[in-house]
Each structure stands twice: as structure tokens, then as C-alpha cells.
């Protein structure tokens, strides 16, 4: 199992009260499953308190990068020691 770091940014950091968390996982999907188990309810409850109701898992309403590359552009889902997952909400207003 690879020891990786998940870093939260923007609103997610504020609502989760944490900059980052370590996880052990071999594949991105393992990491996202653990992330959901650990933080999913907390994030949705915080959002609900702010009047924002979201369905689904964290990964459904977040932008996620692995070492700076969006998961949508990745060829491999395997994780290695020291990888960093960056996770934040889509911010598109102006």
C-alpha cells in the first residue's frame, strides 16, 4: 500500500477543518472510497448548514488532481508512495 497525502483547498479546507490527511491506497478509487468514508458526511453536513444541499459523493462535486494532473487526463489509476491528491470545489463565478 502506498502512503499518499490528500490536500484540501478552498471551501473544502474550511469546511473540513483540515489542510490535508494521509491515506494508504494502491489505486485512486481506493483513496476516493476512503476519503468519502472519512469526510463525506462531514462535508455534506457543513454544506447543508450553509444552505447548500448536494447529492452524491465528494468526488462527484469536486475537482481532483493527482500530482497536479486532473484525474480526467490520467492514463493510470495506480498510486505510488508520496503521491498527492489535490481536491477542491469547482469555482467558476465572476
Amino acid at each position, binding site marked *: 500500500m502506498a502512503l499518499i497525502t490528500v490536500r484540501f483547498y478552498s471551501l473544502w479546507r474550511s469546511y473540513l477543518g483540515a489542510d490535508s490527511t494521509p491515506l494508504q491506497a494502491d489505486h485512486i478509487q481506493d483513496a476516493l472510497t476512503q476519503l468519502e468514508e472519512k469526510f463525506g458526511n462531514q462535508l455534506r453536513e457543513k454544506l447543508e448548514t450553509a444552505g447548500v444541499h448536494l447529492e452524491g459523493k465528494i468526488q462527484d462535486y469536486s475537482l481532483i488532481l493527482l500530482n*497536479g494532473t486532473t484525474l480526467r487526463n490520467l492514463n493510470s489509476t495506480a498510486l505510488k508512495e508520496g503521491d498527492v491528491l489535490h481536491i477542491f*470545489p469547482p469555482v467558476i463565478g*465572476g
Partner: protein
Amino acid sequence: MSPTRFLTDLSLHSLLYYNCRDSCEGISVESMTVDKDVRRLVAQSAESEAAPDGKTCLVINLKTTASISRSQGVPPKEVEITALKQGIIPSRYLRNIGTIGLEGQIKLLQSTVGVVGAGGLGSTVIELLARQGIVRLIVVDNDHFAEQNLNRQIMSTEENLGEYKVLVAAKRVKEINSATSVTTFRERLTRENAQGLLSGAHVVVDGLDNLPSRLVVEHACRQLAIPYVYASIAGFSGQLMTIFPGDVGLSSLYGSASNTAPEQGVETRIGNPPATVAMIAALQVQEVVKIITGVGTPIRNQILFVDTREFAIDRIELGR
């Protein structure tokens, strides 16, 4: 490395080009033919004034600049550039010079900036660029001011609701800086018209509120080989990156398939408050100033996050 010329928009009097592939040294200014009478009049009109550091410097005021401009039949910007080249500072830029230098101010006075969207981010960007001394703005927006704009769109007032944003912006710029001209396009930027509308710009700034339009602007800027200053906001948070033609860009966040990218984000739920808009627009203007003057380092190939709820600033290096 030899300079890479991204620009082909040449004026009669100046040749501007970027020296920036691996590094950005700003726009270079080559020789400019200055009318001898203008130069003489500027030198004769210069006055001594205490600079911010207490030392004495030579300045030329707004009234004199306008008078020479009228009498010699040259635009105010030519008078201002002529002054700066002689070490005489137009008073209006006195507080700029310590930051960007005389040459930096000259470069701004020879630059055109495109602003797509004249609402939240865009109107603050336009106001600040006019004050900074950008000589020409291209403003694209097909919308008019509505009540829900009043909270953050700095050019909207109770009086001008219903007026087109580009027309209000042009009027406002004229009030701020007579040396800055505004070319307005009261239409929506599309993949078909983008390059035509933005032609002549040395930098384009994002004042948009949706992702599909940003992807159009990014594509157009890559085609035109000019930098694009992207930014967006929601709630207490904003993000920004400057995208040069060969840099990574929005696909680093949203993937290469534009049809899977969301149109809007959490701002639809957590709002667009005024201070966040002003803060991020100000950072965009700083990027423009850095790109044009070569002072400082633009935020390239990385995304900047600013979150003022708990106050955190982060940068992530982006891959393709």
C-alpha cells in the same frame, strides 16, 4: 535563448514584442520617433515636485499634457511617453513608477489589453487598468446592468440599470484616463468571432462567469499567441492562473474533453460577494502589469487559490 516574438501588431512608432518562452521579460520597446516640438514643449513644461521618497523629481501635470496634445495634434499617450523617455513623470503615474519604473510605465502606455466580460471581475479589471495607464482596452460583453449586479459589479449603479456594460465601461474609462481608448464589442464572444474581436490585444483578461466561454477565450488566445489571465470566484474563494500559449491551461483542471466540463460551480450556491470579486480582479491586473512590464513573475503552469474565509493562499503546480 533568442527572443520569441508572439506579437505582430506593430504601430507606426513602436515595435513591441515579448521575450518569453521559458521566462517572461515583458514587452520590449524599440525606437520611437518623437516629434521634436513635443519633446521640447514637454521639457519646458516640466516642474519639480517632491517624490514619495522626499527626493525631487520632474513631473508634468494633466492640464499641460492635454494642452500639448491639443496644440501638437498628438494623442495624450504620445505626450506622456515622450515625457517618460526624458525622465519626466506624468503626475498621474507618480505613484506607479516606484513599482514598475519609467520603462514599465512606457510599456503599459503602448499596450492593448482585451477584457472579456465587463461585469464582476471585468469591470474592476477595466477600472484598474485605466488607472494603471494601459493605453487601449478591448471590451467584449453583450449584457446590460441588472439589479443583481449591484452587489459586486463596480460600474453598476442604480442610475445605469439597463444600460449596456461595455458602454458604461467606455464612459467610465474616459472619465478616469483620457489617454486610454476603449474599443467596445456589444456581442457575445464565440469560437467564430473570438480571434477577430481580440485581435490587437497583447494580453486578454477573463471577466467571465461560466466555463464554456472561458474555454473559447483560452482557445482564441492560444491561436493569437497571446497570454490569457484566467480567474474565477465563489464565496470567500478565488483562483487564478496566467496561461501563455505553450503553458498548461484549463484542461489541467477540467480535463481535455470540454463537453464533460461543468458550466458553473459552487458560486451558484455560495454566491459572488463584492470583496472576493475585487480581490481577485486586482490580482488579475497585477498579472497583466507583470506580463507587460516584465517586473515580477506571473503565475504560470500553476493555479493560485485564495481563500479568505480562514485565510489561506496556496499554489498547485499543474501537469497536462
